[in-house]
């Protein structure tokens, strides 16, 4: 028997893999179409066609390697950035989440109100003279009617059958709907209305109850106004996602809608005292924290790396010990540290003889705790990369410096340190960017606090921009997603600009 060629096995494997990928993508497109998510369906379709073209084509060799990464980059990096930037130019917050069309539809529903006396009817679904109809019993007067889209006809006694509670269950000429018919009655019941007077009508409120209703809100699409027919109040579009009373802008109708308002969130961030004060304070602390923490971690990591660079007894053991904090999940470490620093039950205050030092509720102590805990979490990484950098330095430079009479201190400060710094620059910059957005540390340890609420502070002493944005977006029942997106965009620009500047300064990009 001939041996199967490796190329045949590869082709079969590739075909099978592509079939699986294609199947998954087709399934996802189908689900997206069912959900009317046309943009997602379109993107998936492009990915589907692209995948099959790239891997069945002999010409697209480079794309075979670049395509998966490019797709993931677009989906998980580019799209979120673009979407965040897009949402930042909307008035997008609690009460202003849906589209204007949906808001008007919802307001129309909300504006269907029961009559003042709350007249309700027991209801039986069925047909009358070949039309959909309701057999209605007034719950207060026990009068019985047949309701159709043409109107309400009261039935005389004897022309219907009632149960013990005087609810009519059958009537002459009325065919009661079967269970299956009731289950499928939504299609007509949703729009079914029995006119009673010019203003009043009866609407089903379920399968067995109906209510006498009237229309409170009337929307005029010509001038985009809503009129409250009961109070006479005119509601106008305020240009910021809500209908408000024309003579009282504080009288706001909800739901509102997401209104495109490009400058609002950005201008407000710097001009609204409620936002600008905390923003600038948080911004300064974020820069300071990211800078100080990286310097501290690097200093300790490098010091330990230099110490461990010398031959000594038990060096392997010490090295293993030093990277242990790195091996432990950071959230666990942070929670343990939070316990250690607890004022009442914490180990540290116990060690200090039952001291009542409020580590996490004093602004400067809390900042110190944040830096200390992050130093614990981060120094092993800097120790590892510093060790690698030191070992990568060419030994002949050090030997040449010694021959030229340089002291050990001079060799370190003037030769080794600049070289190590150049090697580690990209990692220091990425560490800065990471700590700029170090959400987990701050949120698990202090939740951004302490916040001096009684003296009017709204941002905590240890809040970073990322935790401040999170609190703004999700910190209370009133979420301001548009503002949070704007803060995120500012953060993205700052981190991106700092990273580009630092990379340029360190000439890393040119030498890569």
């Amino acid at each position, binding site marked *: 028997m001939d041996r199967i060629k490796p190329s045949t096995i590869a082709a*079969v494997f590739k*075909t099978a893999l592509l*079939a*699986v990928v*294609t*199947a998954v993508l*087709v*399934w996802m497109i*189908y*689900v997206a179409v*069912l*959900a*009317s998510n046309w943009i997602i369906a379109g993107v998936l379709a492009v990915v589907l066609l692209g995948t099959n073209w790239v891997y*069945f084509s002999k010409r697209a060799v480079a794309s075979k390697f670049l395509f998966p990464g490019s797709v993931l980059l677009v989906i998980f990096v580019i799209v979120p950035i673009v979407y965040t930037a897009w949402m930042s130019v909307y008035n997008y917050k*609690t*009460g202003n*989440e*849906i589209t204007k069309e*949906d*808001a008007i539809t*919802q307001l129309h*529903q*909300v504006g*269907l109100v029961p009559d003042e006396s*709350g007249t*309700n009817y027991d209801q039986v679904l069925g047909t009358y003279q070949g039309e959909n109809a309701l057999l209605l019993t007034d*719950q*207060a007067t026990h009068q019985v009617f047949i309701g159709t889209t043409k109107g309400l006809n009261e039935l005389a006694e004897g022309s219907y059958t009632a149960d013990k509670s005087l609810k009519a269950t059958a009537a002459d000429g009325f065919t009661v709907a079967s269970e*299956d018919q*009731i*289950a*499928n*009655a*939504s299609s007509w*019941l949703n729009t079914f209305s029995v006119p009673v007077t010019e203003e009043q009508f009866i*609407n089903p*409120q*379920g*399968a*067995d*109850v109906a*209510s006498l*209703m009237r229309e409170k809100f009337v929307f005029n699409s010509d001038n985009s106004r809503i009129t409250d027919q009961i109070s006479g109040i005119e509601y106008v579009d305020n240009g910021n996602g809500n209908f408000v009373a024309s003579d009282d802008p504080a009288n706001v109708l*909800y*739901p509102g809608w997401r209104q495109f308002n490009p400058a609002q969130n950005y201008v407000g961030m710097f001009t609204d005292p409620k936002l600008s004060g905390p923003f600038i304070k948080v911004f300064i602390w974020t820069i300071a924290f990211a800078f100080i923490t990286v310097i501290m971690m690097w200093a300790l990591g490098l010091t330990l790396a230099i110490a461990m660079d010398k031959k000594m007894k038990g060096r392997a053991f010490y090295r293993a010990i030093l990277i242990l904090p790195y091996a432990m999940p950071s959230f666990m470490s942070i929670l343990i540290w939070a316990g250690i620093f607890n004022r*009442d039950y914490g180990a540290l205050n116990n060690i200090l003889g039952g001291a009542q030092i*409020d580590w996490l*509720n004093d602004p400067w102590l809390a900042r110190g705790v944040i830096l200390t805990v992050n130093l614990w979490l981060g120094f092993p990484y800097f120790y590892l990369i510093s060790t690698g950098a030191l070992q990568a330095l060419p030994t002949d430079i050090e030997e040449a410096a010694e021959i030229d009479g340089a002291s050990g201190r001079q060799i370190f400060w003037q030769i080794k340190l600049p070289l190590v710094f150049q090697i580690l620059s990209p990692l220091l910059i990425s560490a800065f960017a990471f700590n700029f957005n170090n959400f987990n540390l701050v949120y698990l340890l202090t939740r951004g606090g*302490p*916040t*001096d*609420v*009684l*003296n*009017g*502070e*709204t941002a905590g002493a240890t809040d970073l921009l990322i935790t401040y944005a999170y609190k703004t977006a999700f910190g*209370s*029942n*009133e979420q301001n997603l548009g503002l949070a997106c704007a803060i995120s965009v500012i953060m993205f620009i700052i981190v991106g600009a700092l990273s580009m500047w630092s990379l340029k300064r360190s000439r890393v990009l040119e030498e890569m």
Partner: protein
Amino acid sequence: MKITKKGLALGAAVLTTAAILGGSMPAMAADQTITIWMDDERGKTLTPVLDGNTTIASGYKIAVKTFSSRDAMVAAWDKASAAGGPDMMFDAVSSVTSAAKNGKALPIVLTATNKAELPSAALKSASYQGVQYGIPVDVDTTTMYWNTKFGKAPKTFKELAATFAKFKKAGKVTTGVCAGDGTWGALPVLTALGGGAWGYKADGITPDATKVLFNSAAFVKNANTYLIDSKTKKGNGLFAWDAWDGCGQSFLKGKALAINTGSWRLDAIINAGINYTLQPVPTVDGKGTSHQWSGFGAVFGTSFAKEHGVDLGVKSVLSYFASQKGALAYATATKRPPVNSKIGSHLSPDVAGFANAAKTGLVQENELLGSSAGGANWYDVLGSTFTAAFTKGLGVKASFDKGAVILKKNFADGMSKR
């Protein structure tokens, strides 16, 4: 016809794809199913009652989707759209009002029978801008669990303070009364000492935003007398507000006299071997009663139900939970104190006990408590005020006066949105 290698591969790929897809496509046609979302706590008790039910709403089948936690459910709800979104949800009334504000709740019309079954304050809490959206089904309220190893529960706050001083001196306790649910659960201690949040208008149920009781003279005097250590000018430990993870654990270890919390801690307290009695936090002179917040849990329909074509079925299910029959089925399954007081005689002693405790509850007005018009909401103001007065020793009057200034603005703002 010559079959090329490439053609063969393509054919194989198409066949394999078709085979994988076969039978795995979601159903295109929508059925008459009402999907109800609930958290893990309600899910484990209500699923046996509701899931698959076809009788509550004739012609509709109920499907229950339970989430691993309330947070998971709320996160999913925040992102929910008509595709995959629920038709109904069980959650706190605050979710009903925020859903209404966001246009994601289904307005309903209450029948006269519904209105007769449920207290107007509870119904109002599940409404927004005068429109009813939800049916309140349970009461989240607290009461004081007193650890009987320290003797009988005190009848006055003075007696409570004396008991605490005695056992603290003996090294038996570190805490007197623990607010087991943090600042939310601190109200009984405030009201027991003559303080609180806001006053009420003549009808007794409408908050009066101009009456801020937070820094009342009686409270300041009593707090200085009972909660402050005369030497350190800081808190003496009689009152702690660091919630379940803090003083709550002290209570479980027998290091706190009492904890103020709800029925949701019952199992943990029993499992810790604590023998307890239930009663309100005693007032200074034993007259009158302290008060705690009473929040309501509710069931409501979503705007997606209309898009799914099941809104009438949803209204029937809501009507069921508004009825005595539905309320009893819910209370029996969940063991939560019901809003519907007419089913009291059918409840188990535990549930009835908490339902009884709910009678002294003040309605948790989320618009007032959640407002941060003054700079921070009720919960954060309390935390900062307690820290200033009892941890930092900055003085009860000075600290509570500052807090009251913020709260006054919040209450006025909340009333305008109520």
